[in-house]
């Protein structure tokens, strides 16, 4: 599966390089946009020392973990949300006649290596936060776990967004709220949001497990919303449940695929 993905990704990279100018512009733009995200956080902290009870470095830790997971998914699976274009153009049919999962083909579809800039930026921010914060070394094992859970959760969200587009062929933008919307949401401490919203993204759509809950453990903080301690460790469970749901939805979507007229 990894080999097939790498093969498809390499193919699309070569296809993108057939247009060198556009390739160069995308690389530069990708880096510029990534830099702006961090700039926003730094500007906020130039005016205040804490953000809803969290210091600058703690906020950068939250930003780094969520964004690393998000940007990895953005590079490797986000292309799934172009499925409605493939449904409308009939090109999904040509993917379905190949002996490779259409999910994999879509994830690799028009793969752009230029997005690696954003991943590097997230990794640098996380690295900085980890070195600046005085963290309990006994709690650091949670960092790779939370990033892995974040990757699974975002991948599941993108898959759900793709599955939804089998129904919402004409309104693919709606599903961006799930993917890019949640990517934005997890960049900040959840304590800046209202209680109801945080409940929703804890118990309904388990975004709190991308970084918020496990980060409270790593940072050795109590939850300002007062959730019990064991919630910090539920990330893998939440990720697994969401992944199963997404897989089911994807299967249903494919089975109900209607193709186009010709």
């Amino acid at each position, binding site marked *: 599966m990894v080999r097939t993905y790498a093969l498809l990704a390499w193919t699309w990279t070569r*296809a993108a390089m057939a247009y060198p100018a556009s390739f160069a512009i995308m690389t530069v733009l990708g880096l510029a946009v990534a830099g702006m995200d961090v700039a926003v956080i730094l500007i906020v902290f130039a005016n205040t020392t804490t953000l809803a009870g969290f210091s600058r470095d703690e906020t950068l830790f939250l930003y780094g973990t969520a964004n690393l997971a998000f940007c990895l998914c953005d590079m490797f699976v986000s292309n799934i949300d172009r499925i409605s274009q493939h449904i409308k*153009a009939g090109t999904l*049919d040509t993917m*379905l*006649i190949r*002996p490779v999962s259409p999910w994999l083909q879509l994830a690799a579809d028009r793969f752009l290596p230029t997005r690696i800039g954003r991943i590097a930026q997230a990794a640098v921010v996380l690295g900085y936060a980890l070195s600046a914060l005085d963290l309990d070394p006994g709690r650091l094992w949670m960092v790779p776990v939370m990033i892995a859970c974040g990757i699974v959760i975002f991948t599941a969200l993108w898959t759900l967004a793709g599955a939804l587009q089998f129904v919402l062929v004409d309104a693919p933008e709606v599903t961006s709220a799930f993917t890019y919307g949640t990517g934005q949401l997890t960049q900040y401490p959840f304590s800046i949001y209202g209680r109801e919203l945080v409940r929703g993204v804890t118990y309904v759509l388990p975004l709190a497990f991308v970084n918020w809950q496990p980060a409270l453990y790593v940072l050795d903080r109590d939850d300002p919303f007062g959730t019990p301690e064991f919630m910090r460790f539920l990330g893998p469970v939440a990720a697994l449940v969401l992944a199963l749901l997404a897989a089911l939805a994807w299967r249903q979507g494919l089975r*109900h695929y209607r193709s186009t007229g010709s």
Partner: protein
Amino acid sequence: MIELNDVGRAFKVKRAVVHAVRDLSFTVAPGEFVGYLGPNGAGKSTTIKMLCGILTPTSGRVRVAGLDPSRRRTTLARRIGVVFGQRTTLWWDLPLGDSFDLIRLLYKVDRKVFRVRLDELTQTLDLGGFLRTPVRQLSLGQRMRGDLAAALLHAPDVLVLDEPTIGLDVVSKASIRTFLRRLNAEQGTTVLLTTHDLGDIERLCRRVMVIDHGRLGFDGTLDDLMATAPEHSSIEDVVTALYTGTG
């Protein structure tokens, strides 16, 4: 090789239910060359998409090479070749040869077997002149020959063609027809062909099936087809009579 039993496929369109295909049953034996005719919207493409597992039938049973296409789609993909005349399966911005290399890896075709097969296809389909050309720069005739080769690199038992000669000039059409006839005769590949070009049917198909309003209206040899409307002598008139029900 292909077996359909009481197959139906319905679509919901704004609360109404449209039966694109209903109660369709037919069998295609290994090595047959069958033409599949029908007016626009008769259910040809729907049938083909059920054969390769793209669409799941709403009723009935489909078997291709012994497999249920909608449940075993990726397994079946290695045994069936599909060409859509209206859209390409090749990579638009890459040289034609690169698409072939990629297909070899996706279908896990052995390198030596692939080389022999590609040489053969390059020769019979006359691809040598444009293997290094990006697909987007090919003429329609060249691209269609490329698509045919792509569908055959993994040596499928069944080849399904959905309007492979659409938009082609007479020379391109002739070369594709010659190729298909040889493929069927020499390699024994089963071929199911939909087309609006009755020349394809006359020159290639021993057996013809006609579908209309989602049901099979005729199934027999080309001679039988001509005999349905003895007052007409051209295949165009016979088929028109069959489509409009005035025969």
